């Protein structure tokens, strides 16, 4: 589809953007050149901090004021954007270049209905009457395949799902048929099946209108699915630019090769067998969680977040619970860790039925189940040193300060961090390092069961691969049982011995990872696998 003979709609050359003086490097991006032809999708790929979003924002003229374009040019259909004043830039936004963002949950104004938010674009940039505008908005809502446009028009963002909100964003960005669409990780926050639909929609609208798309992503699956050409960014430098086929099948730069190699394979590796007589650490039987909100006059609202969940994990084994948002996977994790109380069913921990235990006994058992959360940026107290966070738990269970510190130093080594880092604060560590600290904190309690709730989802692929490897090593060395909650099938394929697929609160498929991945039985599992982006590309096999 590459139409290089045509005049590019967007052309960036020699773009350099300076960082503020105290930053860790001089330029956010340096000497970046690429172009986007009409009807072409160019993906900018890179890990966090690579500068890919900075490029997108500089095109839109939405850079934070601390960042300045110092050199280079950005041309939109021949118009030099870096020389335009604020008003001229404003007039181009949404008319000739539109943008959609990563978080559909927060990118829409929560106190304005969706129709009015789209209408605002027309109000600002056209002279249409209010009736004309309304019919145009409704038509656009229909074009992004939202059901019942009238209802969508008057709906508030919180009443819609993530996918629907992203469709509203797309409608807003494309209603005036801009020549360039900039998409900043628009599907990263979405479930895999929703992601597939949104990618499909972007493809469809962009082909129909011959829109040039600059698509920013960290996910090589998405790249394989969507891109005509790919630009790989590393720390503000463009290290490789070529057609998708070239870059993915035959990467030239070492960094590109490393990134592609880090993408977890969809195929589970052959794993050592867990002995049948390995003790069962955790077992649940018909676990259920029901939320009831009491309404007026007996109109109760009942939500079954988890129904009939029966799973077991042996020592040294990793059980993965895979599912989309709202499937109940986190509810199960919270019931098992007693962060919430289950409403029905039994949970046995090392043979003890926890429902029959007293508060005191439960407290001593709590040590045995530890959890690592998704967001390493928010799960450590920013005002306490790493050491304080790690030793707090053991000391609470009667370990002396000296002993706890000695243990913590050992754990830091185990998670491959410098033990002297114990005196530092969380913000002095990178995301991957912080997740290692969270793991050390969990291990300090000497648990039998480690629950990882989306523990690698917020990390870049290269870091993700390292943390996954670390988790596996630790599990083998300490003979832990591990419960791995994830929405990412490829991650599950890599670390899990046994996988449970959850949908709408129920376990729909449950079995050894290899069998389940090679021959999914349930239609939901099949749909989930089918939707995974880039499945058919070489690297994903």
């Amino acid at each position, binding site marked *: 589809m590459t139409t290089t003979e045509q005049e590019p709609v967007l052309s960036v050359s020699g773009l350099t953007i300076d960082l503020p003086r105290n930053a860790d490097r001089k330029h956010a991006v340096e000497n970046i050149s690429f172009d986007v032809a009409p009807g072409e999708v160019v993906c900018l790929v890179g890990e966090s901090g690579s500068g890919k979003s900075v490029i997108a924002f500089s095109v839109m003229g939405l850079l934070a004021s601390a960042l300045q374009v110092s050199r280079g040019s950005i041309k939109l259909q021949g118009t030099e954007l870096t020389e335009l004043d604020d008003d001229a830039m404003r007039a181009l936004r949404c008319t000739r270049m539109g943008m959609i963002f990563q978080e559909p949950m927060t*990118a829409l104004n929560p106190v304005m209905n969706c129709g009015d938010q789209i209408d*605002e674009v027309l109000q600002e940039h056209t002279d249409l009457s209010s009736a004309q505008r309304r019919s145009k908005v409704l038509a656009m809502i229909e074009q992004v395949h939202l059901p019942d446009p009238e209802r969508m028009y008057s709906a508030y963002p*919180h009443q819609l799902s993530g996918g629907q909100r992203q469709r509203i964003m797309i409608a807003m960005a494309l209603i005036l048929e801009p020549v360039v669409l900039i998409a900043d990780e628009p599907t990263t926050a979405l479930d895999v099946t929703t992601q597939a639909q949104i990618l499909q929609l972007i493809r469809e609208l962009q082909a129909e209108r011959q829109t040039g798309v600059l698509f920013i992503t960290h996910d090589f699956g998405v790249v394989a699915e969507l891109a005509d050409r790919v630009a790989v960014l590393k720390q503000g430098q463009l290290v490789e630019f070529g057609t998708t086929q070239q870059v993915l099948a035959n990467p030239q730069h070492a960094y590109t090769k490393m990134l592609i190699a880090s993408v977890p394979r969809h195929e589970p590796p052959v794993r050592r067998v867990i002995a049948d007589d390995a003790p069962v650490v955790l077992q649940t039987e018909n676990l259920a969680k029901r939320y009831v909100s009491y309404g007026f006059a007996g109109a109760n609202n009942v939500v079954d977040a988890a129904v009939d969940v029966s799973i077991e994990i042996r020592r040294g084994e990793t059980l993965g619970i895979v599912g989309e948002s709202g499937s109940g996977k986190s509810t199960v994790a919270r019931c098992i860790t007693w962060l919430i109380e289950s409403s029905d069913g039994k949970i046995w921990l090392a043979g003890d039925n926890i429902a029959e235990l007293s508060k005191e006994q439960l407290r001593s058992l709590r040590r045995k189940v530890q959890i690592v959360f998704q967001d390493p940026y928010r799960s450590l107290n920013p005002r306490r040193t790493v050491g304080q966070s790690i030793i707090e738990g053991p000391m609470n269970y009667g370990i002396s300060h000296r002993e706890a510190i000695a243990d913590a130093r050992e754990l830091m080594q185990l998670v491959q961090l410098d033990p002297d880092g114990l005196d530092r604060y969380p913000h002095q560590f990178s995301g991957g390092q912080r997740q290692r600290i969270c793991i050390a904190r969990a291990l300090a309690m000497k648990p039998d069961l480690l629950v990882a709730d989306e523990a690698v989802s917020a990390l870049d692929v290269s870091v993700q691969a390292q943390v996954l490897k670390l988790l596996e090593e630790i599990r083998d060395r300490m003979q832990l049982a591990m419960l791995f909650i994830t929405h990412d099938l490829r991650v599950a394929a890599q670390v899990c011995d046994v996988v449970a697929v959850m949908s709408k609160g129920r376990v729909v498929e449950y079995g050894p990872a290899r069998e389940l991945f090679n021959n999914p039985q349930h239609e939901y599992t099949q749909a989930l696998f089918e939707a995974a982006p880039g499945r058919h590309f070489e690297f994903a096999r």
Partner: protein
Amino acid sequence: MWSHLLKRVLAVIPVLLVVMVIVFLMLRLTPGDPAANIAGDAATSEDIAKLRIELGLEEPLPVQFGIYVSNLLQGDFGESFYYKRPVISMIADGIEPTLSLAFFTITLACLVAVPLGTLAAYRHGTWLDRMVMGFSVVGFSVPVFVIGYLLIYFLSVKLGWFPVQGYQHIKEGIGGWAYRLVLPSVALSVIFIALIARMTRTSVLEVLNEDYIRTARAKGLPQSKVLLKHALRNAAVPIVTVIGIAIAILISGVVVTESVFVIPGLGLLTLDAIQGRDYPTVQALILLFSVVYVLINLIIDIIYTILDPRIRY
């Protein structure tokens, strides 16, 4: 929504009961005798004892409370010990000045503070922001009577632009009514401007970092629309909360301002009633203030649901 409102209104009853008991006891258990006050310096102890019986103060406390509540249920707030007038008619006389002053003050405070706070947030870190913040600190720290007397000294005594004190009823002419309210409202509003401007600044500043503000800018909206339509509306809930609290505090602040500017409102009435240990008047006034507090909170709750469609009861 309606069931929530009903619940809220019903919840007012125990609150008012507690207020009634506490005020009743506090008045009678603190030293001071209304009879001695009324009888004056020359009265003999027999005179005072007679007066106490007349006023019903010799009955046991539970009996007095019973009489108070049963009268109240019949809509009778009692008669002032001092003025021998029904308390309700005294409140009716005082309510216009007080409401006028409160209305002027809060309107002035909102009109000044909200734009000021929004601008400070938008021009975050500039001299304008620092000026607004500096003013807030000063506004918070200076008591209302100091500001009042300063205004009187400069604007009334020195420059003669405004009357020194007094109040004109609205029926005697809107011009004079408004003119005489300017100084007291300005004096009283300073602290609320400080409070609301600060809150507005913080709230808007937080909202300006939200993703939907970036979306609004990506749509090509001008700054003013981004600020007013997208930022301020989302920042409104905490601002409205503070304005509500301000109205509540205002009622107690009115007491001082009214005595500085000699405005015959509820504040002055409260002051007189407490000094004269005029039990029925104090009880009725505090009950009235409590009802106002509760009503303001209820209204704020309703405004929340209008401002933010995500809030539903």
